[in-house]
């Protein structure tokens, strides 16, 4: 038999599962370990990409039943277009990141052993691939938790730092609680699929062929949505995310933010569209609302950060929100039997999934390069890096443009599609939704604009201006493996932005599989140059023309203006006649965000204090001013703190039981007997 895509995929998983052995053998010679280990993961990722792309292309589904697992419930694998698409998303970024890691991880050489990093990196990738491949509840949860555990250890990598431990612990607890919720929802589905007479109910096939009463289906959906939302970092469950992602090694944070969150998106799509299939419109409304809230809150909190990686982590919350908006709209349209619009919204959602993976991966890799060079995560201490690391700066800029949804890069296309989906909502029968959904569009617009502001800040403060820190480290440009990793990601961003028609035509099979219709034909109706989602009259966008048009005009203008050689003279900046101007007087992250902090202040938990030093000649002219600002995440106080307090309260109360006197214990058993006997009579 000739090997099909699923065989390739499982081969790559097997490679990743066996890699740890090799790695642990090589732990003597760390350098060799890094090269071989990450080369191996890169190869495996490419294999997975190939398998996934092949599946989506051919649009056919393959199954595989493994020999391991419970004897009555062997592990079922299945590779359908949806799984294939996510396989591509994950594989592509993990390929880029694996290449990048070869350069990045070398930074740890001599400082600490990277063996555990490499091992858990492999397991992490394997877990993610298995999640999308798995086709029964047991293997799904196993791979889900393997993924979580591996990433937990990766977050713990530099475990002597207290904040790493704290973040890792928080992450682990949230992830596990979510996993239990998912488990329970599968319990509902399996129980309804075939009672619990046998183990067969746990396979997804059984669930697909089953028909669920609405109330039970709702229970299942809410449970699974809670679980997946906890993993995806949807507000208000997101608090762990900005703690955990920044402290992990940057290549890992790229993967966690870029693709691990996407597995949760995959889960939501899989459960709702594939397993339950028939659902009321308000499920979609729930998803939509959570998406909107996450998008706005995520970007607003991101604006308040001055730690580069934290900022990016909060932007993951935002983008997950945008993806959920697309999916929510798709669910609403599906519920109202508008398949074409549903296909449009779904395409927008998954296209943004792919795009976000690319540019968020790129951004985290860039942040990693900066961290690697300056050993500094606080933007207030940076500046002017564009002169020292031009490559990184340029690539990071591409990431910034993409994530700020600006043409001609990829972030824009998917947000534009989402807008189109919004604009089509008037065709919904329910008048209330007609009125309310456009508000969502406005919120999305707000999100996009704020994101742009946030990345002007991020790029401007990090790479532009003068160095703000006190002591300036000798910064060196990232080495070639890192650069190549970033270049590939940037190229992907550009390609997906300029030629969306091809990408959408390719990923057509996914809505085809889930909804039954697709927009591929209409979107590509006018050839590869014109993207016309619904109809030519409705709306259209041409990436190539925008890109090459602007480029052409720029070049033309440049050439025209340089026919006459004009001398350029460099001078110090204009200091308004005030000689003592220095780099501490530049705008920094905090001051940049000040107007927005003022305007949206009610959403944050802001502690702002100005203190004048004691020895002042006159209170109007203090010698020194001390300014301190703390912006805390409100949801920590609203959601997490109370839970923690409650559980400790409970444990204090329970502790009373064990109070030491043996007589009391005897009384317990005495009373127990009496009570049971009474209960029995």
């Amino acid at each position, binding site marked *: 038999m000739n090997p099909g895509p699923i065989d390739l995929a499982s081969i790559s998983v097997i490679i990743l599962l066996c890699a740890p052995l090799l790695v642990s053998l090589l732990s003597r010679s760390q350098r060799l370990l890094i090269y071989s280990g990450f080369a191996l993961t890169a190869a495996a990722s490419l294999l997975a990409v190939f398998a996934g792309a092949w599946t989506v292309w051919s649009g056919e589904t393959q199954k595989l039943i493994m020999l391991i697992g419970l004897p009555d419930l062997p592990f079922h694998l299945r590779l359908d277009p949806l799984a294939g698409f996510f396989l591509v998303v994950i594989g592509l970024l993990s390929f880029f990141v694996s290449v990048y890691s070869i350069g990045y991880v070398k930074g740890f050489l001599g400082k600490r052993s990277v063996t555990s990093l490499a091992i858990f990196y492999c397991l992490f990738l394997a877990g993610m691939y298995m999640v999308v491949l798995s086709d029964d509840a047991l293997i799904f949860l196993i791979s889900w938790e393997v993924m979580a555990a591996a990433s937990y250890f990766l977050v713990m990598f530099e475990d002597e730092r207290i904040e790493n431990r704290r973040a890792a612990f928080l992450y682990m607890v949230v992830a596990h609680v979510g996993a239990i919720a998912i488990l329970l929802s599968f319990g509902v589905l399996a129980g309804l699929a075939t009672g619990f007479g046998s183990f067969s109910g746990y396979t997804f096939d059984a669930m697909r062929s089953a028909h669920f009463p609405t109330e039970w289906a709702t229970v299942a959906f809410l449970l699974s949505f809670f679980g997946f939302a906890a993993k995806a970092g949807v507000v208000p469950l997101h608090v762990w995310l900005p703690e955990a992602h920044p402290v992990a090694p940057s290549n890992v944070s790229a993967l966690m933010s870029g693709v691990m969150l996407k597995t949760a998106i995959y889960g939501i799509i899989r459960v709702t569209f594939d397993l339950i299939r028939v659902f009321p419109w308000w499920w979609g409304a729930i998803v939509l609302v959570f998406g909107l809230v996450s998008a706005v809150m995520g970007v607003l909190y991101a604006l308040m950060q001055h730690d580069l990686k934290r900022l990016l982590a909060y932007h993951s919350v935002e983008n997950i929100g945008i993806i959920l908006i697309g999916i929510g709209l798709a669910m609403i349209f599906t519920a109202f039997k508008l398949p074409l619009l549903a296909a449009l919204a779904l395409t927008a959602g998954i296209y943004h999934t792919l795009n976000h993976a690319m540019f968020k991966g790129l951004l985290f890799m860039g942040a990693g390069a900066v961290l690697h060079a300056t050993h500094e995560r606080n933007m207030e201490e940076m500046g002017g890096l564009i002169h020292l690391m031009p490559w990184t700066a340029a690539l990071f800029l591409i990431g910034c*443009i993409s994530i700020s949804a600006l*043409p001609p890069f990829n972030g824009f296309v998917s947000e534009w599609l989402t807008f189109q989906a919004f604009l089509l909502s008037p065709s919904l029968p329910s008048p209330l939704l007609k*009125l309310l959904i456009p508000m969502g569009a406005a919120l999305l617009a707000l999100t996009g604009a704020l994101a742009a502001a946030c990345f*002007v800040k991020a790029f401007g403060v990090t790479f532009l201006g*003068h160095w703000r820190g006190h002591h300036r480290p000798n910064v060196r440009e990232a080495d070639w493996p890192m650069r190549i990793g970033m270049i590939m990601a940037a190229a992907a961003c550009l390609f997906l932005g300029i030629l969306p028609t091809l990408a959408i035509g390719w990923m057509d099979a996914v809505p085809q599989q889930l909804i039954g219709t697709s927009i591929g034909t209409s979107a590509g109706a006018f050839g590869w140059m014109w993207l016309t989602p619904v109809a030519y009259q409705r709306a259209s966008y041409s990436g190539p023309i925008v890109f090459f048009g602007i480029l052409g005009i720029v070049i033309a203008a440049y050439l025209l*203006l340089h026919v006459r050689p004009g001398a350029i*003279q460099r001078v110090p900046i204009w200091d308004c006649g005030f000689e003592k101007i220095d780099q501490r007087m530049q705008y920094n992250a905090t001051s940049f965000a000040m107007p927005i902090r003022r305007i949206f202040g009610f959403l944050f938990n802001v502690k702002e204090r100005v203190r004048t030093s004691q020895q002042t000649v006159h209170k109007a002219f203090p010698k020194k001013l001390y300014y301190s600002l703390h912006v805390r995440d409100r949801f920590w106080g609203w959601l997490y703190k109370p839970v923690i307090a409650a559980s400790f309260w409970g444990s204090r109360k329970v502790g009373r039981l064990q109070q030491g006197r043996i007589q009391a214990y005897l009384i317990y058993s005495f009373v127990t007997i009496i009570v049971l006997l009474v209960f029995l009579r």
Partner: protein
Amino acid sequence: MNLYPFVMEILQVLILLAIGPVFVGWVRVLKCWAQGRSSAGLLQPYRDLRKLFSKDVVLAENASWIFRFTPYLVFGTAVLAGGIIPILSTDLPLAATADVIVLVALFAIARFFTALAGMDIGTAFGGMGASREMTVASLAEPAMLMAIFTMSLASRSTSLSYMAQLVMSGQSVLRPSIVFALLAFILITLAETGRIPVDNPATHLELTMIHEAMILEYSGRHLALIEWASMMKLFLFTALGIAVFAPWGIASSADLVAVAAALLFMLLKLGVAGVVLVLIETGLAKMRLFRLTEFLGSAFLLATLGMLSYFILE
């Protein structure tokens, strides 16, 4: 193939480049009259540009390539937008390149780079300008989108030429939703093009300027390009408003008479628009930055009202 659309395309771009400065000059002239000053004439902007182009470039020490790239990019986006908005004719080969949303995004990328350039040289002014500009923009965006949304409700499309054609075909006479949308659009235009009461292009007073603060360090041809681009931007927004709300006269058929008529109509409308603009600018005073939330909030409110009234009244 008939060359007509391509001719139109080129004609539009030329008109944009040519009339952009004149329009600004017209506004200044009107303003002088309104304030009882004697004006410098319609063509003063041309002279300014020529002066700037002929000057050498003085660059801050640590200005990076971004600082030098930005003027060309800003100019480029403006020109490209000119090729898309139906100024004279709705039958343009590039019309399908971008619908309204993409157009807004085009202006956004120009703004993005301007803000970066402001931060590049590392003065306090640049950062301040960038910060304020992005804040204003982020507040203007939702209102802008609501206005677009309302219009696209009426004309089931976001593609400019189709919106224009629909309005022209006349089945949409005076509608409450469109009126509200128009009002909202005017407010947003003031914010986007940096006019009073949001920003004052004429001032260089540290604490009030927004756009000027970002480009403070520019000189020579760079400054010229940016100035020109901003003039075109004002023109483009006006043209956009005209195309969406009062497209009557824009040629849709291919004969020179129609085009000539369209040109005439356009000049007429621009004149009126200039008057309106000047009335607003002389009538209002520059706002404090933090009162802009109210200003743009009311724009958002108007747009939303337009949307509601579409569903409720029509």
